[in-house]
C-alpha cells in the first residue's frame, strides 16, 4: 500500500531498510522493509536517484502517501542515492 505508492514516485529508486533494517512493518507472513507505520508517525526510508532534488522527491513521496497517512506526519528519510 504505502510502499507501492512510494516506489511509484519519480526519483525513488527503491525503499531502504535503514542502517539495521529497522524501518519495517511486520505484517502476518511478510516483512515490509522501508515503511514503518506507527500510531503517531509514519516513516518511509527511500533510496533516491539523482534525477531531481531530494526535497522534491521527498515531498512527492509525502504527497503520495498523504491520504493513507491521515493526519499522521510522514517522515521521509533519504538513506542512499543511486549514482
Amino acid at each position, binding site marked *: 500500500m504505502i510502499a507501492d505508492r512510494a516506489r511509484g514516485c519519480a526519483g525513488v529508486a527503491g525503499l531502504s531498510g*535503514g542502517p539495521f533494517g529497522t524501518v519495517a512493518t511486520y505484517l502476518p507472513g511478510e516483512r515490509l522493509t522501508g515503511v514503518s507505520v506507527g500510531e503517531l*508517525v*509514519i*516513516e518511509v526510508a527511500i533510496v*533516491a536517484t*539523482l534525477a531531481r*532534488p*531530494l*526535497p*522534491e522527491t*521527498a*515531498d512527492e513521496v*509525502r504527497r503520495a502517501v*498523504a491520504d493513507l497517512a491521515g493526519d499522521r*506526519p*510522514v*517522515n*521521509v*528519510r*533519504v*538513506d*542512499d*542515492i543511486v*549514482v
Partner: protein
Amino acid sequence: MSETMSNRPTGPGAAGTVPRARERDGGGATGSATSLVTDKGTTSIDDGVVAKIAGLAAREVSGVYAMGGGAARALGSMRNIVGGDASVAQGVSVEVGERQAAVDLDLVTEYGTAIPDLAAAVRKNVIGAVERMCGLEVTEVNIHVDDVHLPDQDRDRDRGRDRGRDRGRDGDRGHDGHRQDAEPESRVR
C-alpha cells in the same frame, strides 16, 4: 515554518551537533523554498547521501585528479583490484544537521592547476550541488589538497595497472615501482 528541533525523528544523532551550533549563530538565513521540516513530517537526508553528492560534484571539476587521503586512496585501489566499485564518497566527510551541512574534502590536484582557483571552483560546485539536491544550506566547504598529481606519474600508474591486470605475463616491468612516493595505490600490487 516551525523551528523546533526536538521533533527530529531518527536522524544521525551525534553528527548533528556541530551544524546545529552553527545554526544558532547563523540566525534566520534558512529561507529555502523547499523546507526539509514541514508540519506534515520531516525529511532527513543521510550523511552518506550528502557525501556522495559532494564527492560527485567535486570530481566534476577539471583539475581534480582523485579524492581521499593516502590511506583512503590505497584502500580504494585495493578495493578496485578486488573488484569492488570505487566509492564516490571517498575523500569526503560531512556533518549534516537538520538544515545545514558542512563538507570536508581531501583532494589530489593535477599538476598545473592554480590550487586557490581550483578550490574556489570545487567549493562553488559542491555548494551548488548540495544546496540544490539536498536543500541543505552549506555552511562551509573545507578543502585539503593532499597531493599533486604529476603528469609523468600517469604512465607509471597505467603501467602499474596493466601489470596488476595481466600479471604473470609481463614480469619485466618490475623496476618502476620505486619512483611513486606520492601514489601509494600503485604499490599495492
